């Protein structure tokens, strides 16, 4: 008799989960639509040269940046070496103001606001909660639970498939957004991509756990992402250290510190170091996965059929 291989079965399950996630057409198209919209908005702003302070309304913009542009574009002055050195220093300072202005604006309004507050959680949430939650809703989970595969293995296979798509959208989408962000966006990618990866791992694992625990996991994940994370982020003191978003921002602030990008009120925000934040996020990932495997292997799903 031809023997069945558990490893082949598990690997095929991973492949099947990848296929099935891709076939959730509506979900994928909406995610792509969000990416396309964000990329288009960022791209149009790049083409319009909006990543500077030149167009800012009086009294914020105007004089200071115009001066920096003029200084930066100035030709070499006749004169002695010390004067030239001084001019070079002034031009460097002006260039760095203009450069950092773009990076600062891009970071604050695209990365920290639009991407971190919405796109990253929603892309992670969509794929992670649909992995098990979608099967329960469609009543097809019975076909997986009936296979001779250990339940933790099924859970892990689903997570791997989720991670593929979450990373593809989060990291890939972030790369695309930064690429079309031009001069302001490209350094942002090299600074922030580790934070994006760690946050994706942690959010995906947490939302995957919610999918195993709750029938309407998407809604529970929404409460976490758009209520708890928002409320905790605005709390003074150490309460905010319960949220994944806090550690992600700490990683990003730590990298961007040398460019003067930091929390609005650091003495209230009390950020942690990048390494600490990274380990915490990895720890959250591992813990969520472990608990999820345990929960999934012990749960009786009464809505199988």
């Amino acid at each position, binding site marked *: 008799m031809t023997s069945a291989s558990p490893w082949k079965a598990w690997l095929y399950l991973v492949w099947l989960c990848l296929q099935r996630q891709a076939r959730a057409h*509506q979900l994928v198209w909406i*995610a792509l639509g969000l990416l396309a919209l964000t990329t288009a908005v960022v791209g149009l702003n790049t083409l319009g040269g909006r990543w500077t302070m030149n167009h800012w*309304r009086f009294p914020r913009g105007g004089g200071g940046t115009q001066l920096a542009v003029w200084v930066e574009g100035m030709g070499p002055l006749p004169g002695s070496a010390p004067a030239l050195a001084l001019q070079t220093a002034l031009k460097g300072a002006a260039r760095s103001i203009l450069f950092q202005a773009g990076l600062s604006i891009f970071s604050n*309004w695209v990365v920290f606001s639009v991407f971190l507050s919405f796109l990253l959680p929603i892309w992670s*949430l969509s794929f992670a909660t649909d992995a098990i939650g*979608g099967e329960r809703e469609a009543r097809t989970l019975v076909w997986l639970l009936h296979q001779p595969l250990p339940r933790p293995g099924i859970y892990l296979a689903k997570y791997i498939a989720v991670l593929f798509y979450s990373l593809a959208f989060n990291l890939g989408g972030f790369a695309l957004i930064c690429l079309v962000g031009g001069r302001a966006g490209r350094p942002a990618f090299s600074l922030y991509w580790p934070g994006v990866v760690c946050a994706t791992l942690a959010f995906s694992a947490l939302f995957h756990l919610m999918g195993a625990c709750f029938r309407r996991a998407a809604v529970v994940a*929404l409460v976490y992402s758009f209520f708890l994370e928002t*409320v905790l982020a605005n709390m003074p003191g150490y309460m905010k250290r319960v949220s994944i978003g806090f550690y992600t921002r700490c990683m990003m602030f730590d990298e961007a510190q040398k460019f003067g990008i930091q929390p609005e009120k650091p003495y209230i925000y009390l950020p942690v170091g990048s390494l600490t934040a990274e380990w915490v996020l990895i720890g959250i990932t591992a813990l969520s996965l472990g608990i999820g495997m345990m929960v999934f292997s012990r749960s009786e799903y009464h809505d199988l059929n």
Partner: protein
Amino acid sequence: MEVSLLRYRPWRGKLHSPHKSVWTIARISLMMMFHRKIFWVMYSLGLFIFLMYFFGQYLLDWAETTTAETTISVGFIRTEPARFIEVLRNVLKFNGQPEMYRNFFWWQGSMVMIVLALAGSILVGNDFHFGSLPFYLSKPLGRWHYLGGKCLAVAVFVNLMTTIPAVILFLQVGFLKSWEYAVEGGYSLGSWTIAGEEWHLRLPNPLFFGILGYGLVLTVCLSLLLVATAGWLKRTVPMVMVWTTVFFFVRLLTAALVDGLQYHPRWRLFDMWNNTNLLGSALLQVNPYGPRPDWQPSVAEAAIVLGAVSVLCLTYLSHRIRAVEIVR
């Protein structure tokens, strides 16, 4: 035994008009939600903001009353604590002024959206996804009765989290300050002298009607938008994605465009929650062009956008609600 011998009494009642089915559908939908624990968990989270306002007002009043007779030293100046409390009350907008209600409605946005996402998925999405719609439409009622029932149910959830808590806050201010607050500025319907005493009859404070008006704007716009979204997408996760896109993503994007990149304020018209806030502020007679958030479109433009979106949703729903799916 023949049925005719069983002496059943025929039903002699009167058949109600199909319009009454609107409340029946709404009642069933409400029960479906009220039976779920997750709804109550989310509703209690949604009451956080309300409780903060409620107890905040009470705390400030209690502090003011307790420290009424005392004075404190600030540097070399002796002053009454009541003045600081008054300043705090005005800064935080815990003062019963229209801004307080406007801020309350604004901050309730997140949880209202999340509760409505759940409601949309359960009440409407399931009907389309699992095919319960033919059961409704096979009865002697039309698609508008079905739509009315679902919108009424959504309206209850919206008002449970916004209008009703705002009215409670309004009453609380009246109890804490004086009952004059409740009728201040209200139109006088007349006065009479009874047993030597003069009695005036006045309509409530226009602020009260402003609160109800704001609630009505939210009810109409959100219910139509939710039913249309749930009817289009049916399944929970895609519905949640689109719903959050409309209310969270667009808000962040328009804030980035207008506040961050200094675009024209008209770009905020894409933000539905902001549009309802503008219209609601006008009904509350608050200046909508206050310091935060900056640079707003006009109230008329916001109203036009809301109206257009509502009409679009109605048009879509009139085609979507049918007993038999047309497969192309």
